[in-house]
């Protein structure tokens, strides 16, 4: 069907109202596609501006090189320290943050009296809403000196400080998503377990939690996404030196590597920063894919 036939079938001349309706439909379709367009633009821009440097430097040297000296006379662009820092930092945040978030969510979903739950919902909302630079600021003034004194290291701005800040920052999303999943567990499951003689605590942990498993995994993966993408807060507490990561050294994450050099970068260094962003983007896409699998898996059950 070509355009003329289509227009004839629609009979717009005699139905100006229909023409208006169809135009409005089209406008809304275009507005809906803005999100799709944005994703495409972001992907294309990151690939186009990130790939050249990777190819110039060599994928292996770029990804597995252990030295980053972008402004040296003979610059080296190895981002393994950043990748490992991001992975260690995220893992640390998950190890500390997820258990706290998980137990808090179980309590809030199953045991908390109404008043406590209302207050806690506000607390979690505030925790989620606090700007990341404020976390960074508090980390800078309390955590960094605290770690220096407590562990006797020369500088408290370390991976450890970043891990703690990240653990706090992922708490709200871990709690909220697990809470929703736990609340969605059918009451009958729990009643059956109680009727069989399990105590209420046993019921919550052995029946409700397994039933909400996919939701809780989603919460963890979401937490990973948050932690790996955070930039400003950890830039203020992690010291920002391109070391191979260990708990009490000053480190640089993938995000902070981009943020800290962007403003004065040029040439290959600038291109390499875009390549780092591309690597970060791939990590995020991987996490998104896992989230999607979890979601469809949860639905089909």
């Amino acid at each position, binding site marked *: 069907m070509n355009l003329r036939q289509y227009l004839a079938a629609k009979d717009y001349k005699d139905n100006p*109202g229909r023409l208006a*309706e169809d135009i*409005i*439909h089209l*406008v*809304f379709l275009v*507005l*809906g*596609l*803005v*999100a*799709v367009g*944005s994703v495409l633009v*972001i992907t294309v*821009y*990151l690939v186009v*501006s990130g790939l050249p440097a990777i190819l110039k430097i060599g994928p292996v040297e770029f990804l597995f090189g252990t030295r980053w000296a972008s402004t040296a006379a003979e610059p080296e662009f190895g981002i393994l320290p950043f990748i490992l820092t991001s992975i260690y930092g995220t893992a640390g945040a998950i190890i500390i943050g997820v258990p*706290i*978030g998980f*137990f*808090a969510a*179980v309590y809030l979903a199953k*045991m908390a009296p109404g008043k406590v739950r209302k207050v*806690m919902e*506000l*607390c979690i909302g*505030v*925790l989620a*809403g*606090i*700007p990341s*630079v*404020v976390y*960074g*600021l*508090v980390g800078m*003034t*309390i955590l960094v000196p605290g770690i220096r004194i407590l562990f006797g290291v020369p500088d408290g701005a370390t991976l450890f400080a970043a891990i703690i800040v990240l653990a*706090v920052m992922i*708490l709200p999303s871990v*709690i909220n998503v697990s809470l929703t999943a736990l609340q969605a567990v059918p009451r009958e499951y729990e009643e059956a377990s109680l009727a069989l003689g399990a*105590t209420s*605590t*046993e019921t919550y*942990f052995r029946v409700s939690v397994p039933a909400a498993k996919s939701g809780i995994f989603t919460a963890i993966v979401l937490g990973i996404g948050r932690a*790996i*993408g*955070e*930039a*400003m807060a950890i830039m*203020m507490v992690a010291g920002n030196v391109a070391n191979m990561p260990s708990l009490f050294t000053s480190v640089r994450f993938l995000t902070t590597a*981009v*943020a800290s050099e962007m403003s004065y970068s040029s040439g290959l260094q600038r291109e390499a920063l875009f390549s780092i*962003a591309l690597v970060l*983007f791939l990590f*995020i896409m991987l*996490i*998104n894919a896992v*989230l*999607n699998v979890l979601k469809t898996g949860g639905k089909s059950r």
Partner: protein
Amino acid sequence: MIERISGKRRTWCGFMKAFCYISLALVTLLTGFMILYVLFRGLPHITGQLLLTVPSMLRNTIGILPDILNTVYIVIATLIIVLPIGVGAAIYLNEYASNRKVVEMIEFAAETLSGIPSIIYGLVGMLVFCQFFSLGTSLLAGALTLVIMNLPTIMRTTQESLKTVPESYREGAFALGAGKWRVIRTVVLPTCINGIITGCILAIGRILSESAALLFTAGFAHNLNGFIKGMSSAGATLTVALYVYASERGEFDIAFAIAAILMILTVIINLLTTYMGRLMKRRNGQ
């Protein structure tokens, strides 16, 4: 009953419960500590001079009036642009779309957008808006970047409230002979205005707390401008100013004063969203 439970089971239950209480206490203490500490360190430094003047090299004083105005400008600009797009997209998904593939594609895109870290938005915003559209480092470029970041939020909240509009409202209006657009404009949208407002509040919260995406797109100048001039020139929002004062200039008192302002705004925004949520629940219950 309790007596017949074996000791092992009882200890297990006790431990689990204890973990729950400890975790909850930690979360509460942490929130309380963050709020009180920031207010305690920041409030004494919030003075009229800080709020109402521009930074002056001559008198060696710091004022955050330009940053406050920049924040207001960027919030207004972002909302003006993101609202029609986000609400429109939600309306398309909920009212018009008949092709499942298209719906899935748009929803997938929105989800992807909400997972992308702000530093990447900052970079791409810089490449696309500052360089490709040659807006330069300006509040407008920052606002456009924030539009894309907040699009999923507005879409989701609007869509959720569109779903709660009873089908009978639409059918009633159709039965009276109204066209689709008229039904949406006069029946559906007014019914879901609360959801759109909630989306706006959430978006304002995100814009207030955003820093990484704005650092490269909106820059960090502290000039006092009107709205139109301000949009086309670089400027720091409160969060960016906080970062600059704390990290690069070591002015912790100023940073904490800004942090206190942001903290108060965060609490207000949360109270508002909770209130809106209750309002919507009550109305849907009726």
